[in-house]
């Protein structure tokens, strides 16, 4: 990992709630996520992507990976609660919820979510007070970046 911390921003301002982010949208939407989650932001970059790490006051760590072209192609979260996934998955949220419903019936029980659509991969695991999640758009991963790098 050759990440360099370029700047750190603390944002406690509330932006209009009509703005939305994030997966598949411009990296500028990260600022809206920070405001909505009332979190703190740390941004760092490597050769193939820019990493925006948001720490929420409730203890959830959110990461948003943006391509050199400025598009968010992956998000992860980890903490005692889910972040607002409608906000975080943005245009993919409805597709995600629909896929969870289908998988719930197919699985004949409960277990971690594993959605593997052609244009969307989502994994959610954990238990009460400890959740982890990862979502990405496979086609938008920058050249040279591997899925394992999204953590």
């Amino acid at each position: 990992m050759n990440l360099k911390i370029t700047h750190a921003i603390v944002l406690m301002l509330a932006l209009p709630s009509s703005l939305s982010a994030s997966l598949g949208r411009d990296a500028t939407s990260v600022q809206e996520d920070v405001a909505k989650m009332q979190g703190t932001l740390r941004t760092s970059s490597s050769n193939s992507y820019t990493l925006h790490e948001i720490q929420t006051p409730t203890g959830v760590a959110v990461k948003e990976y943006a391509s050199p072209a400025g598009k968010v192609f992956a998000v992860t979260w980890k903490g005692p609660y889910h972040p607002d996934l409608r906000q975080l998955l943005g245009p993919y949220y409805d597709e995600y919820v629909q896929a969870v419903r289908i998988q719930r019936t197919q699985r004949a029980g409960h277990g971690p979510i594993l959605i593997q659509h052609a244009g969307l991969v989502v994994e959610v695991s954990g238990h009460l007070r400890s959740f982890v999640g990862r979502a990405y758009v496979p086609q938008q991963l920058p050249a040279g970046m591997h899925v394992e790098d999204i953590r």
Partner: protein
Amino acid sequence: MKPARRYEIFSLLLAGILAATAGCGSSSRSSSTSSGGGSTAVNNVQTITVNTGPTAGPPINSPAINEPFTSVTVCAPGSTSNCQTISGILVDTGSSGLRILSSVLTISLPQQTGSGGNAVVECLPFVHGFTWGPVQAADLTIAGEEAKNLPIQVVGSVAFPTIPTSCSGQGAEEDDLKSLGANGVLGVGIFAQDCGDGCTITGSNNPGLYYSCSSSGCQVTTESLANQVANPVIFFATDNNGVIIDLPAVTGAEASITGSLIFGIGTQSNNALGSQTIYTLDPSTGNIATRFNNVTYPNAAFLDTGSNAIYFLDTATTGFSTCTDLTFWYCPTSTQTPSATNQGANGASGTFTFTVGNADTLTANGTVGVANGLAGPNSGMFDWGLPFFYGRKVYTAIENQNTPGGLGPYWAY
């Protein structure tokens, strides 16, 4: 363990103020008011059944696999006649609190109210999404144990049809039989309450699980520990420090099995700690570590009767291919028996083997409700679901509760 002890004191004060000002609906913990005080131990053994469950028949026609069910009896607090016994309740060591579908509840329970007399309604996050519904009080009877005036969640109540967007953004709604897969959930896990200290504080640090709802809508509210939906076990007069899941060994697939949910650890002759190894947990996550193929995955593993398979790692690290259609399960061509080592925060460790079968074969017959060998991917994590419990007696000790094995939380087997 946690930096929030002062919040506990604060919340106790707050609870007292709320109880004094709001007046009604506040439930209080019935900790040690032993009425009998006699020497006869209560029946602490509840039968659990692993079978195709309440969704097997019409109209859902979706048989469950590796889901343990039981029955509970709930009464309006103080009543011996306004009662109902409900079957098809999922026994879940991965969550805490009793949740019952509004659609199966035929008795009326008192609504918990908060400041201003507004109804308290909860949004509880699960992996798949959330349950939404009001917090109400009930007297729970299970085996010979009683939890009086227990705050429970009534899921999917028609009285609160509008889900706040902050709740509906958590994933899929699990408020009916089809989506929840059970008539209710009996959460008897490691936590005393479902939310804990986070929900007792104001401002942006509050995760927003509890809402105060009036005719004009719902707002996030604080909720004292005493008022939160709680692990019913801590409400018992005795046998209140944890549970044991005792299930028979299983080879391959079966229609159903029965076993026991035993209340208490070291409180009666049938729940003593013997030669079991105690695995203490990371206090912030409730996880342990698992070592697999010479790689240790710290803080990445948990034991959960509410998960219906052993979900671990992925095809790249295990070499087990996933099924063609059901890609959330593994489908090795022949049954495999890998080994793994669980490691507690206390340094305790134990190595064991488990079974990874072909899920397509195991689940081909719709009458199968039990399948040892059901396993699937779970990137970087180990969810030791119900198959792990087959042929084991697994102890779950609740946080901050005293046991002969030390203070909870821990798992022992």
